[in-house]
């Protein structure tokens, strides 16, 4: 890069020299002799100094609040979609198993015929207890996750 243009230092060189990106004795020597380049350098010096005095302006809205509101909304939507997929798949699986099981229903029922009422009741109660236990566990896990995700989200702990 040429440092001189019409016997004066180029703007690029003056700026680079001012910002200490380059150091060259020839530039310093020229500046000591040339009032035009010196004046230009002073202008750049004032410009850079004044740029640093510019106050930082914020948005008229609270960035954290609007962003977290969006994130929470996104998480809720994502969870809703995941839930829909989960229940959809579960329903589909249930229907599939049920439809495949139809031809075997009479054979399954014959399992209960020779048993006593006591054994049948025991089987039904055990099945119900296991089902209720699983349901309660799923519900508890869901509530814990929901609380963890959404509690105090709009008032971040910093």
């Amino acid at each position, binding site marked *: 890069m040429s440092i001189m243009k019409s016997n004066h230092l180029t*703007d690029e060189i003056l700026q680079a020299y001012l910002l200490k990106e380059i150091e060259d004795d020839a530039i310093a020597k020229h500046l000591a002799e040339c009032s035009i380049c010196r004046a230009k350098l*002073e*202008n750049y010096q*004032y*410009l850079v100094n004044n740029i640093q005095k510019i106050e930082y302006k914020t948005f008229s809205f609270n960035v954290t609040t609007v*962003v977290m509101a969006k994130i*929470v909304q*996104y998480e809720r939507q994502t969870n809703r979609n995941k839930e829909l997929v989960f229940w959809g798949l579960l329903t589909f699986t249930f229907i599939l198993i049920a439809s495949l099981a139809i031809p075997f229903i009479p054979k399954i029922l014959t399992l209960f015929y020779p048993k006593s009422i006591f054994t049948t009741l025991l089987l039904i109660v055990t099945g119900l207890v296991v089902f209720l236990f699983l349901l309660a566990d799923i519900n508890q896990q869901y509530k814990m996750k929901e609380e963890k995700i959404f509690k105090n989200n709009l008032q971040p*702990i910093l």
Partner: protein
Amino acid sequence: MSNENNHFSDKVIVTNILNGNIQDFAMIVKSTEKLVTQVVRKMTTNVDDQMDLVQDIYLKAYQNLPSFKFKSKLSTWIANIAYNTTVNYLQKKRIPIIGIENTIENNFTITDNPELATIKTEAVEILNAEIDKLPPLHKTLIHLYHLENLPIKEISAIINLPEGTIKSYLSRARKTLKDNINHHFKNEYYEK
């Protein structure tokens, strides 16, 4: 050392978020909002659009957090998302990011420096107005380099341009500002 600490705390925060503590994302927002604000504010003017952009930027960051590999600082990565999102917005609105500058030809010879006496008083206000007239990319570069004091290398990672190009744009932006401010004060000086 400080960079390593930042890197470490970034990792802790990101891990927490990925483990489901989404309120920790607010810490990332707090630590990067100044940088994102500089990028968005300098490239756009409409407040509603700015709010949408800020939400989009952080939502993209949140969605892509699992793919963040800590190869750069988290703030640089988010600033890069901010820049790309804002550029896409400007392209959709057909606003050029490197437009034709309002350059005033420096066709007068400076014999002395009359503007320097006056420049001190109103300079910052005038400078602010002149910066606002610059093309969006030049405005952003001036703020990132001179106000955020980011090194050229980091700006290059944010803006996706080579370091040489960044230096060239910065030089051009500063020259435009200097010429426009000189012209402003020359006019005032000769009017008096």
